């Protein structure tokens, strides 16, 4: 499998991803130790000394295959999986939250054609 498995619980597909995929049905409160080195590569602080790691705690139960925010994501920010943009946040998403249609929307194939204005969807996310 490509990517890095976090503690047998979740899969990080690429270094700069802001979400991981649950590899099991995870309960609220589950802790995921996340290595933050990858995201601080361009940090000017020049800190050395290996893995600075932090723990992401699941805010809610997240089902197998569903996504977990690994960092706080602000509304309007792009969300990354596979090292690529999979959509934008339609609400503020705290680290440890479930990321799905209620808080993440596509920027493509839209009747409104306003790729950058994902909030046009409203907080509901899924237009059905």
């Amino acid at each position, binding site marked *: *499998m*490509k*990517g890095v498995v976090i503690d047998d619980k979740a899969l990080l597909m690429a270094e700069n991803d802001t979400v991981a*995929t*649950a590899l099991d049905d995870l309960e609220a409160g589950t802790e995921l130790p996340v290595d933050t080195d990858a995201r601080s590569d361009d940090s000017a602080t020049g800190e050395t000394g290996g893995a600075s790691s932090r723990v992401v705690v699941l805010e809610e139960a997240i089902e197998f295959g569903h996504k977990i925010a690994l960092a706080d994501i602000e509304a309007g920010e792009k969300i990354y999986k596979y090292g690529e943009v*999979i959509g934008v946040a339609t609400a503020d998403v705290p680290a440890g939250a479930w990321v799905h249609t209620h808080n993440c929307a*596509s920027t*493509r*194939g839209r009747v409104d054609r306003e790729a950058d204005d994902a909030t046009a969807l409203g907080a509901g996310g899924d237009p059905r």
Partner: protein
Amino acid sequence: MSVTASALADRIAVEAGALVRSTPHQMGSSQPEAARAQTERVLVGTGRNPNVGAVLLVALGTEAIDADDIADRIAGTGKPVETIAIRDAGGTEATIDEGTKIARSLVDSIEELERETADASELIVGVECGGSDATSGIAANPAVGNACDRLVEAGGTATFSETPEFIGAEHILADRCPDDETRKRLLERVDTREGMAQLMGVDLRLAQPSPGNKDGGLTTIEEKSLGAISKGGTTPVRGIVDYGEPLPAGGGLVLMDTPGYDVESVVGKVAGGAQVVVFTTGRGSTTGNPIAPVIKVTGNPKTWGRLSSNIDCNASTVISGESLEDVGQRLFEDVLDVASGRRTEAERRRLEEFAINEIQPAELVELRGESP
């Protein structure tokens, strides 16, 4: 040849014995030109597919599509082709009787054909995904992609399709095009498919990802596409052909521009010459094809647990630690075995879904480059 003739083609296939298959469909009676040309291309390509030994075309006799023309285009391969028209044969019963006789004699006429050894370089393998979930992009699709890389390395052709499921990942495919012309053509096709949804006043997000995809953890079309394209492997994108258009042998990785409906998409690739199809499913799809064996692969351990009788390959082992290379090698061997005659689970169960894509009115407008 048409919806009317399809019912009789089904009956004849049942009466004529174990080697005969029908390809019933709803098109052919009266379609606008571009749509009719596509139906013709699929009928001709299905008949010309190397898996087919002989062909009986069943028509009502009033179709806009000319059965004799289709027969001639199939007969160019050298295989025996016959036609029967319900109006000329004297009605339903007479057509079934006469058609069954013709079909049996066609079977007799090819019975002495012997199986010959062929190299993997002569294989055209269609890859498809249906009922995708988060495991598709993590396990099943990259494993199939690894098998595609092996096939291309061996000199064969791999093809995948469903252009709406390139949206959000087209830049990765474009980077793998060896020349500007292929790149431009690919990006134009993606634009057209993305535009079609908008032209019909349909927000793509309503249909993509599907409700099932969403239950399985896929949130956006970009996420679905990024997982979907991994089933084609990592080799250069050599070209993109139309729905049902002939695929080149020895062509490497070639894309086919099709809609995102899996049965129609599989039919397009088989009409393009694919002799074997590898079909990944996360949620659990059981569909097959009447002409080409369909190898079902899942990356979802729960789906494997529930539906293993319908699935040929368990790729969920990728999640528990088996390497993509090992699963890819297993799958490549499965493809060679199935091409050599091993029956797939869909074949055993006679799952033989067939549907020809119909170009919709709004799509015709888009194809002509007009505004609605």
